[in-house]
């Protein structure tokens, strides 16, 4: 085991600046109104830096910088842009520990995850889009002997991106990589809960990017996010968050007739068929781990497998062992590399989770383990920790229908295939799902029948680049994490060219 020193201590691998301004036009710029807000770590609840409180004036300034940079950036060769993305990846890789510890301190998640998943995935994502854009081809259609339609990919220009707090760096890179690869200039607003770690990353890569290509305006949704999302100076807006804000952003976008990509969460089912337990082997162990995946990232994942559906034949035994597996999840200081579950990202998130456990109890759900806050003592007493919680109930309960966004799973029983699919699809959302079976045909059919954009079969919570990620139903619009996202950041230019010397014959 190893425990990283808290940022601010002399032996820490990362030190935050006491204050972060906006990053506009390649330099740090103080907010127009001169205001800052405190940024606490959820690990202890203590403030560790302050961050510019952006307003519409700052957003306009960032848009000015982006518009100044976009024409030249959009005309760079794909080789040049891909090389920059690759160099960004190399720099981040060389600073992996520093950025991973910063991300853990910012968000509260266990450093084990940022070291092994968040930051390595961000690095790979940059390389993936560097490769994708190099390999992208336009098309040629021969209309007739003298007429050719050429299709070129062109950047949109200046785009807006609003980033969530659950994977502050990875979600920023998910959005930045395709936008930059496609040749756009970006104005990005990090979540106000997690505004600082992106600046630690930026310190390592800022010199690689032409000024104005990436601009970061910090601040609150209503003060900085809204002027960005409603601006008539962006050609596209990308958002990850929840449904009401997704609708509001779509309303703003409709006023400007610009496209929107949205990733809006879910209530993902994780289905365990009887045959999972037909042998007590490595696969069975993997399935139990699959159940416990609801606690990954403290449950603060849009695809959290928050509804576990277990078939009647194995229900009691599987559930008993799954609860035991859940109880083995090691909670502790997020900067300790043995810790598996860290702090919830903010106090309001913490309160919301507890309020849902309360409504679950009222609705008659049985608490099989957890169900309360965890006081980890010492400096962690000021942080936001919740014991991984397993609730048993039925799919009509609100804890089965609403995204709690915490380490809480609601478990229900099903009898047969049709029953499983009926329950799995009885939700407003369709982002992720899990299917566990040794029978390939059952797993395949279930995977196809579930109304969700990502179905994990015999695994869960893997996010490799080149596997499309996005929602059905109310879970959003668009597919990230795949080269198809390039299309969402590009226009198609059609040149319809006549090589004939003769008049067309109309007049």
């Amino acid at each position: 085991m190893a425990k990283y020193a808290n940022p601010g201590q002399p032996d820490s691998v990362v030190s935050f600046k006491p204050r972060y301004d906006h990053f506009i036009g390649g330099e740090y710029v103080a907010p127009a109104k001169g205001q800052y807000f405190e940024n606490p770590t959820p690990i202890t609840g203590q403030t560790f830096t302050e961050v510019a409180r952006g307003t519409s004036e700052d957003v306009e300034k960032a848009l000015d910088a982006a518009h100044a940079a976009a024409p030249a950036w959009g005309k760079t060769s794909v080789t040049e842009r891909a090389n920059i993305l690759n160099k960004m990846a190399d720099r981040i890789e060389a600073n992996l520990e520093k950025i991973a510890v910063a991300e853990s301190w910012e968000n509260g998640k266990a450093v084990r995850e940022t070291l092994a998943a968040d930051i390595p995935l961000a690095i790979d994502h940059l390389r993936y889009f560097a490769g994708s854009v190099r390999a992208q081809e336009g098309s040629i259609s021969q209309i007739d002997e003298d007429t050719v339609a050429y299709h070129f990919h062109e950047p949109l220009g200046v785009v807006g991106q609003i980033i969530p707090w659950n994977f502050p760096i990875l979600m920023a890179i998910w959005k930045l990589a395709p936008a930059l690869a496609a040749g756009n200039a970006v104005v990005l607003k990090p979540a106000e809960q997690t505004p600082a770690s992106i600046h630690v990353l930026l310190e390592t890569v800022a010199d690689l990017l032409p000024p104005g290509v990436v601009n970061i305006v910090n601040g609150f949704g209503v003060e900085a996010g809204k002027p960005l999302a409603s601006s008539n100076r962006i050609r596209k807006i990308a958002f990850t968050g929840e449904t009401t804000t997704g609708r509001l952003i779509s309303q703003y976008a409709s006023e400007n007739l610009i496209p929107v990509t949205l990733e809006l969460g879910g209530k993902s089912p994780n289905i365990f068929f009887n045959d999972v337990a037909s042998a007590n082997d490595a696969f069975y162990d993997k399935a139990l781990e699959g159940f416990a995946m609801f606690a990954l990232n403290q449950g603060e994942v849009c695809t959290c497998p928050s509804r576990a559906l277990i078939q009647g034949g194995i229900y009691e035994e599987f559930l008993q062992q799954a609860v035991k597996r859940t109880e083995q999840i090691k909670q502790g200081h997020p900067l300790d590399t043995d810790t598996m579950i860290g702090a919830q990202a903010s106090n309001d998130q913490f309160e919301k989770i507890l309020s849902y456990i309360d409504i679950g109890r009222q609705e008659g759900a049985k608490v099989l383990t957890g169900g309360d806050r965890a006081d980890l003592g010492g400096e962690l007493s000021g942080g936001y920790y919740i014991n991984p919680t397993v609730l048993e109930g039925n799919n009509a309960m609100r804890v089965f229908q609403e995204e709690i966004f915490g380490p809480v799973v609601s478990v229900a029983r099903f009898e047969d295939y049709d029953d499983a699919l009926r329950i799995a699809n009885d939700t407003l959302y369709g982002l992720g799902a899990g299917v566990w079976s040794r029978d390939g045909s059952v797993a395949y059919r279930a995977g196809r029948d579930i109304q969700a954009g990502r179905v994990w079969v015999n695994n869960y919570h893997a996010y490799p680049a080149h596997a499309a990620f996005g929602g059905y139903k109310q879970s959003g619009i668009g597919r990230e994490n795949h080269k198809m996202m390039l299309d969402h950041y590009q226009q198609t230019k059609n040149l319809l060219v006549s090589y004939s010397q003769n008049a067309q014959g109309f007049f």
Partner: protein
Amino acid sequence: MGQSAAEAAEVPGSGTERVALTQAAADLLVRLTEVHGPLMFHQSGGCCDGSAPMCYPDGDFRIGGQDVHLGDLTVEGLEKPVGFYMSASQYEYWKHTHLTVDVVKGRGSGFSVEAPEGVRFLIRSRLFSDEEYERLRAEP
């Protein structure tokens, strides 16, 4: 911390049979109205900051045919009541619960207007009794 709906006392007469307010939420609405003018709520679902009541300047979020009006919250000191809405599809799953808008310390949520104040609106819920539920169901 983590108090239940029963402990989060609603202000008598502040709401309707479906939705009400705590005193802390009422006080915050008065302060926010001074800055933003008349306000409204739309209950969110989904990711991250979801499952939270979003507070907007009245009319900023366009209510449409897919929304349900749960009621108007009356706040002492405010001329206009604060409308509370939710998407109809989400309401299907929420209709058996009574909602109380409370407020906790917190940071940010979408474009909701209270975030810069360092607080968050939060929903406390309690189940309707069978009798209440039957009565509400009979209403149009």
